[in-house]
C-alpha cells in the first residue's frame, strides 16, 4: 500500500526518519482504494446491525428506511470538519489544535460510522481532546458554556470512545508545519523572492483546503505541503524540490518524476474536493440520518433501554459469581476457625473494585 514513499524532508533538521517511525506513518496512511474499501465495509456492517435491531423492535420496519450511503456519510463528516474551523475561530485556538481535531474526526470515521455516532458530538469531543493533546487545554466548563446547547457530558461521554478509536495515538504530523519548514528553507535558495509572506499565506490557504479532503490519510505532510506550495507558486515549489533532491538519500527518495506525479494528484484533489459541502445537500442527509440512526445509540429509545438492561444483567451475574466465589473461599477455610477466613478477604484489592 505504501508504494508512495515520503517526500523530501521539510526542514533543515533530518526529520524524515523520525516521521517514518511515527504512529501516523505506520498506522494512518492508506491508499485511496483501501479507504473506500474500509468505508464500504463499515457502512455495510452498520446497516446490517441497525436493520436487525429495527426488525427486532418491529418486524418489517427496516424495509422503509433508506440508509445512508458511504458518500453521504462522508459528506456529513466533511460538514463537521468545517464546524471545527468555525469553533477554532471562536475560541482563537492555534492552528495546531484545529488541524489535530480535524485529523481526529477523520480517523474516528475510519473506525466508526455516522449512523452509530453523529458527527456533531464526536466533533465536539475531538476538538476538546485536541486542545489537551496539543497542550492548549481549557476547562471543560469554559469550553461548553461557549458552545450553544452543549453540556459537559456531551463532550466527556465520548472521550474514551474517541481516544480508543484513535488507538490512543494522539501525535499528529501536520502539513502546515511542513510548509513552514519549506518557507524557512527558501531563504537559502539563491533566486527566491525576498518576501515569502504572500507565498506562505496563499500556500497555507491550500493546506487548509486540503483538510477538507482525504489527502492526509494518503500522503505525507511534506507531499501535501509541496502541493500547496506548488498551487501558490509553482516555480518556487520546483526550485525547492530541486534544492532538496541531491542531499536526500536515494533509497527512499521518490524519483523526481514520481514526486511530480504525486504532487499533481494532490493538487487536483485539493482543487476538486477542497471546499465545504453544499449545506442543502447535507441538510437532506442529516434529515434521513434521523430515521436510520442506530436506535441502540439513542438515549431513551426502546432499543437503548433493552441494551442497557442486557448489560446490567451481565454485570449482575458477574457480581453474583464473584460474591459466591468469595463466600465459597470462606467456607473452605471454615473448619479451622477464623485465621484462614481472613486470607481471601485480605487479598481483595479494594482499589480494584470498580474494575473489570
Amino acid at each position, binding site marked *: 500500500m505504501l508504494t508512495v514513499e515520503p517526500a523530501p524532508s521539510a526542514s533543515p533538521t533530518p526529520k524524515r526518519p*523520525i516521521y517514518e*517511525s*511515527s*504512529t501516523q506513518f505506520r498506522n494512518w496512511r492508506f491508499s485511496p482504494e483501501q479507504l473506500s474499501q474500509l468505508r464500504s465495509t463499515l457502512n455495510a*456492517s452498520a446497516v446490517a446491525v441497525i436493520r436487525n435491531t429495527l426488525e427486532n423492535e418491529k418486524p418489517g420496519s427496516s424495509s422503509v428506511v433508506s440508509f445512508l450511503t458511504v458518500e453521504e456519510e462522508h459528506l456529513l463528516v466533511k460538514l463537521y470538519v468545517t464546524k471545527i474551523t468555525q469553533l477554532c475561530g471562536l475560541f482563537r*485556538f*492555534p492552528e495546531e489544535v484545529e488541524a489535530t481535531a480535524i485529523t481526529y474526526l477523520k480517523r474516528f470515521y475510519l*473506525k*466508526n460510522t455516522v449512523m*452509530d455516532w453523529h458527527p456533531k458530538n464526536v466533533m465536539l469531543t475531538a476538538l*476538546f*481532546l485536541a*486542545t*489537551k*493533546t496539543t*497542550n*492548549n*487545554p*481549557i*476547562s*471543560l*466548563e469554559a469550553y461548553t458554556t461557549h458552545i450553544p446547547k452543549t453540556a*459537559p457530558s456531551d*463532550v*466527556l461521554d465520548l*472521550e*474514551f*470512545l474517541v*481516544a*480508543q*478509536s484513535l488507538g*490512543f*495515538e*494522539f*501525535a499528529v504530523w501536520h502539513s502546515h*508545519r511542513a510548509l513552514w519548514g519549506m518557507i524557512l528553507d527558501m531563504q537559502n535558495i539563491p533566486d527566491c523572492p525576498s518576501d515569502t509572506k504572500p507565498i506562505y499565506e496563499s500556500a497555507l490557504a491550500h493546506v487548509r483546503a486540503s483538510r477538507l479532503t482525504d489527502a492526509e490519510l494518503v500522503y505525507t505532510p511534506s507531499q501535501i505541503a509541496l502541493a500547496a506550495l506548488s498551487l501558490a507558486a509553482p516555480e518556487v515549489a520546483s526550485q525547492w524540490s530541486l534544492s532538496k533532491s541531491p542531499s536526500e538519500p536515494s533509497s527512499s527518495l521518490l524519483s523526481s518524476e514520481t514526486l511530480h506525479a504525486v504532487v499533481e494528484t494532490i493538487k487536483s484533489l485539493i482543487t476538486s474536493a477542497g471546499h465545504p459541502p453544499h449545506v442543502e445537500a447535507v441538510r437532506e442527509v442529516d434529515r434521513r440520518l434521523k430515521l436510520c440512526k442506530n436506535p441502540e445509540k439513542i438515549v431513551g429509545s426502546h432499543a437503548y433501554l433493552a441494551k442497557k438492561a442486557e448489560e446490567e444483567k451481565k454485570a449482575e451475574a458477574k457480581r453474583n459469581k464473584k460474591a459466591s466465589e468469595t463466600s465459597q473461599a470462606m467456607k473452605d477455610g471454615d473448619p479451622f476457625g477464623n485465621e484462614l477466613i481472613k486470607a481471601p478477604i485480605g487479598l481483595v*484489592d479494594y*482499589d*480494584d473494585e*470498580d*474494575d*473489570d
Partner: protein
Amino acid sequence: MDAVEKANLERQKRWAKDQKVGEGAYAVVYRGREFATGRKVAIKKIKVGQFKDGLDMSAIREVKYLRELRHQNVIELLDVFSSKTNLNLVLEFLDSDLEMIIKDRSLVFLPADIKSWMAMTFRGLEFCHRNFILHRDLKPNNLLVASDGHLKIADFGLARDFADPGYKMTCQVITRWYRPPELLFGSRYYGSAVDIWSVGTIFAELMLRIPYLPGESDMDQLKTIFRALGTPTEEDWPGHTKLPDYIPVGQFPKTPLRDLFTAASADALNLLNKCLIYEPRKRISAKEALFHPYFTALPYPTHPSKLPKCTTHLSARALEEVDGNVEMNSTGPGVKANNSRLKRKLSSPDEDSKARLIARRLDFTKQTPHS
C-alpha cells in the same frame, strides 16, 4: 458491541493484573503479566472519573509521547486500554530506579558504573530531544532500571514538544533540586538545555551519593546553586537579570568543582561542568555529550548486566513508603547527608506532588493557551 469497544476489550484481555506495587500522584501501579507469554509488566491505572475535565493532562502527555518513542533507554509503552472510568497503561516492568540505587548504602559505585548510567541517560535523552520532546521532570526517581541493568527514562507526565522555538511554556516544571536557574528565574522560552541541567545534577548525585543541590524553597534553590557554582555574572550569562522573576540572591564566589568532587576524573568534571553552564545556549547538548571524551576514555562504561543492583525491589519499597516506614536508623556518610535523605523522604515527595499539581492547574488557568 462496537468494533472499537470490542478491540479495546481484546486488548484488555491480553493482560493480567496482579498486585499493587506503588502509587503515584495520579495513578496506581500494579504488577501484571501478558497472558500469552508470561512476560512481566507494570499496569498504570489512571482514574479518569475524578477529573472534571476528562482525561488528565499528565496521562495524555504520557500516552502521546510514549506511543511515539521506541528506544532502549526509554520506558516502553506496550499497550493502552480503558476499563470503565480508568485508563490503563501497560508498561515494561522495571525493578528499581536510580534513586533507590543511590540510596542503597550497601552498594559501592565504581567510576565505570556511573559512566554507564550516564551514557544510558544521555542516549535516552538524545533520542527524546531528537524527536523534539522535552522531558521536564528528570530526576533519579524517574530513571528506572530493568532487571538486566538497562536504564530507562520514565514518567513523561510533564513532557512536551518544542518544535516551535518561539513558544511560551510554563516554568513550573522539573522537581526543584533538578531545576535549572533559567526556570527559577521564570524564563518562559526555553529548550532542551533544561533537561541537560537536570542530568548534570543527577551526575553529581551519582558521584556524591546525596542530592547535589537540595534547596529548601525556590528562592533557596537559587542560593544553593550559586553557593555551589558561584553567582553568575553578566558575562557568564548575558541577559539573565532581565528574566521575568530575576531577583538577586547574593554574591557567592566560584569554587572549583574539584573541591567537592575529589575523586572524579578530569573528563568527568569537564562534562559535569558543561551540563551546569549557566547560559542555557552554551550548555552541552545530549548529542554532544555522547561524543564527550569522558565516554571514550578509560575506564569503559560497565556493561549494564554488571551494574550494582538493589537488593530490595521497587515494589517492596513502594509499599513501605505507603505505610510511612521511613528508615530512621540507616547509617549514612555523615549528619548532613543523613539529614537530607530524611528530608527527601519525608517532605520532598509531598512537595513534588504539590509542584506537579500546580503545574497541572496552571495548564487550565493560564491566560495564554500555551504552557
